[in-house]
């Protein structure tokens, strides 16, 4: 893996805030078809640079548990490494879109509030990891790529 590319990717995620709202981007790491690299290896490399929590979104994952984990990671000022292994459900897509647009989570009837809104802290970021084939063939949301700013492609 090109560590310099990974460092640039992390650096841009850390520093770049889009004008005019000063919003941080979500990052996407794409594993290309020929790549031998595994998600865990990438996660371990990123973990050497920033404090990060891994969340695997697969067949066993329940949306509300995923939300809880993300909110807890934010409360601990941690980054999130979200590995996508099944098509994104509507509730998760809603939260990812809200994170991309406003850097915040918006949930109804959560933690005793009619509208629960929590901001992603300045020191947290979200990196989504997925395989290219999976994105192209399994993810049904047609604007998946537009959720992200920097994209790191692993050849």
């Amino acid at each position, binding site marked *: 893996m090109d560590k310099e590319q990974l460092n640039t990717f992390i650096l841009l995620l850390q520093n770049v805030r889009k004008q005019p709202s000063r919003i941080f981007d979500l990052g996407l790491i794409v594993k290309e078809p020929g790549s031998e690299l595994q998600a865990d290896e990438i996660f371990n490399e990123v973990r050497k640079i920033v404090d990060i929590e891994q969340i695997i979104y697969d067949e066993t994952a329940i949306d509300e548990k995923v939300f809880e984990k993300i909110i807890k990671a934010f409360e601990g000022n941690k980054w999130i490494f979200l590995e996508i292994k099944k098509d994104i459900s509507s509730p998760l897509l*809603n939260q990812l879109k809200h994170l991309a647009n406003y850097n915040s989570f918006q949930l109804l009837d959560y933690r005793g509030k009619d509208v629960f809104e929590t901001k992603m802290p300045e020191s947290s970021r979200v990196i989504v990891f997925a395989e290219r084939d999976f994105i192209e063939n399994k993810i049904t949301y047609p*604007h998946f790529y537009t959720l992200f700013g920097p994209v790191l492609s692993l050849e």
Partner: protein
Amino acid sequence: MPETFRFKSPEEIREEEIEARIKERGPEGEILGGIIFEEEEVIDPETGEKTIKRYIYIGNPYEERPLIIKLETYATKEDIEAIKREIIPMRESFEILVAMAMTYKRRQPLLIEAPTAIGKTYLAEKFTELLYGRGVKPLDFYCSGQTDVSELMGKWVPKAETEEEKRRWNEFLELSETQIQISQIAQEVEQKTWLSPEQKLNLIRTKLQELAKQAGLSERTQWQFQYGVVPKAMGLIKNPDGSFSFDEQKGEGFILHIEEVGLAEPQVIDVLLKLRGKRGQLAEEIQLWENGGRKIKSGPKFWVFFSTNPPEEYLARNEVDPALARGVVFKRMTELSEESLRLASDYYFTYKLGKKPEVKPEGCILDIYNHSDIGKEVAKVIAAFHNDLNKELKKGEKGRRQRIPLTLDDMARVADALIYNQIRDKETGRLDLTATLINLINFYYIDRLADEDLKETMKNNLKELLEGDTGKIEFEGKIITRKEIFDILVERASLPEEEKRRMKEKEEEEQRRKLEQAKNDAEDALDALLKNPNIPDSIKKLLSE
């Protein structure tokens, strides 16, 4: 015929004053109006009590005779000024804001079909802030092929005791048979018109218990109804502390933005059609059969804004449902004009939006955000490149199923990264602006391309634009490449303050010298004319005057 005179009423004078402020422009022709803030003293007719109310006026400053909409706001003057600074004053932005203000005032649902780059989501947020103050966001809902009706309207949820029970119920809910059974329960309740509300609720609970049993949950499971985003938005109350509460009968209502409605499946559209009311307005209430036919009142400040991207941005995608399109104020917009794109680029690269860094950040060789002359030149390059690539991407890309249209965010990212990620020229030690730009454009624009041929073409185009003969433009009277322009501007901006002062003095001295020379030349020429015997005295007299 005698000229007719008429006195203008105070209202007319006031209207003209507001219109002039809406159309106000700065010394360089830049838009300063569009949105204005006013405070007015209002006397309560019953109590006689005087209160100060805040209002905003929104109009399109590009129009000769703009329609101006007045709305009450919770935002302060400072809020409005700050929000205005965050809106790039493009013609399209004001078209959208005016459409929002008009339909909001009339309680009409609005649907805007426009490309990704136009800023629908961003302007929905800014419109909400204009009405409620900084930091307040609309309730947002994003449609996709997977959207479930219950997310919009509401659902019964079991109070599952253990993690295992939660997992089992969630798995059960994902089954299509379950979804069918749940919608059948609502239909059955809807048809049994002779039942009282209480009997309807009992029927629902009995049916849900049967479902719980099928899912492997206990028969004694407790159930609760969770409202979806539509009834929530109808009955929300924005509290003074910024939090929200909900009252299904007496709520104020709030702004609901339903995005990508073009992706919604027919059953979701059917539910959204319930929002249609009389005379093109929003429904005053909706009835939830899922909750035994309970009615939810729509508060006076409830407003729905639908947005979607045009069908050509997707592959295998339906157009907006005709019934939905008929039930809303439907506005279709095309791509940002090249003029707007250039304006946006200029705003991003001269860092006019929001605050500039107070201290030069790490990784920053030249404080480019303080040099608008450099920003303006960079903006021209980025706007041209962005426009070219966007045209190519609209044709679709080889090797990619999804289409990735460019957005203004791509420019914004390059602008921000240009502050933090600069490359140094090894020979001069100054910022190498050309190398930095190539690097960032590669990262943010070119690396995303799946089509290798297009990648190569765009890289070559960029090189030609920056360093080639065809990219040359006139700069201070000379035809040179953009790279040469960047080098000149960076060199000037990198000079120490003392050197800059000396340069400025030298330039001013040179200007003075040229003026003096021109004056002397003119005097000599005049003298020569006056001494010329062939020129008549009458002309000489005029010349000497």
